[in-house]
């Protein structure tokens, strides 16, 4: 069983994800340059689109990467039900490619936010959150200037009723307050799933919270859940 991490020019969190998957969790993981043909991805059991600044965030963050041929390969895998995880710029790319709903806008307070965030697990009904308990509050770092998730009212309603909201920003006690929202995203949404729940996009960086030595291993369960799901799938 092998996982793929897609690298675009400007991706910079690929090595951290690779470290967690292959060294911490023992999964054979390939770093895949975006110029590979879409078919190259056919046999992977899981795909991660890492954080960074693909194409320098030109035009819109993730806009150009989302429209490269390799993403057809990602879409085909997603359609087959393979788990696809987009972290930060990866979430932006997933949104721009239509694999998840909505768009990531500039932070409400126009500042690059680099800090720890509290996230509440909103659903455990997904390949990425199965190892958590609903309502768990976890601490995961964020580092972004365009993490303000937005979508229209009717899509929000669908996301909520279909249990597609994966994580919300909350305070230490698990309340989704305005103060705990680092970027103004609608309903404090930090991560969402697609309709079939096999694609997750989130702004925070779980790969930076997967080992105690970095201060938190709260994010590790996202990868553990994904691996467990891929093994059975």
């Amino acid at each position: 069983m092998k996982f793929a991490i897609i690298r675009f020019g400007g991706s910079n969190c690929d090595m951290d994800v690779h470290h967690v998957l292959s060294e911490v969790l023992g999964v054979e993981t390939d770093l895949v340059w975006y110029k590979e043909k879409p078919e190259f991805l056919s046999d992977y059991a899981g795909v991660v689109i890492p954080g960074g600044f693909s194409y320098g965030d030109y035009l819109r963050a993730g806009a150009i990467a989302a429209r490269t041929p390799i993403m057809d390969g990602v879409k085909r895998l997603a359609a087959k039900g393979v788990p696809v995880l987009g972290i930060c710029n990866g979430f932006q790319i997933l949104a721009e490619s239509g694999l998840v709903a909505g768009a990531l806008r500039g932070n409400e307070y126009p500042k690059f936010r680099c800090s720890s965030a509290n996230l509440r697990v909103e659903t455990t009904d997904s390949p990425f959150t199965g190892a958590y308990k609903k309502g768990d509050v976890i601490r995961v770092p964020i580092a972004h200037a365009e993490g303000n998730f937005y979508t229209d009212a009717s899509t929000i309603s669908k996301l909520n009723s279909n249990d597609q909201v994966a994580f919300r920003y909350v305070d230490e006690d698990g309340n989704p307050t305005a103060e705990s929202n680092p970027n103004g995203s609608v309903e404090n949404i930090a991560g969402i799933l697609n309709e079939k729940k096999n694609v997750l996009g989130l702004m925070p960086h779980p790969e930076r919270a997967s080992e105690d030595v970095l201060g938190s291993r709260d994010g590790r369960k996202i990868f553990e859940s994904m691996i467990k799901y891929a093994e059975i799938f």
Partner: protein
Amino acid sequence: MKYTAQVTITLKKGMLDPEGTTIKRALNHLGFTTESVNTAKRLIIELEAESADVAAETVDEMCQKVLANPVIHNYTIDVCEC
């Protein structure tokens, strides 16, 4: 024929424009008062087309496909032979 299309991309009405607000504040600090400041992105595209209408259609397709994000953007296209 050679045409130049000017695409202007703006955020939909009601969207927060933090960059615009920040610029408004900066102007205020310099002694200027404004009702509002909003940012827009301008793309200048030169292309060959049989007519201005065809050029506009092609550029509209570009906007739909990649230049604008329909979730958050509006856009206008002006075509000239300049």
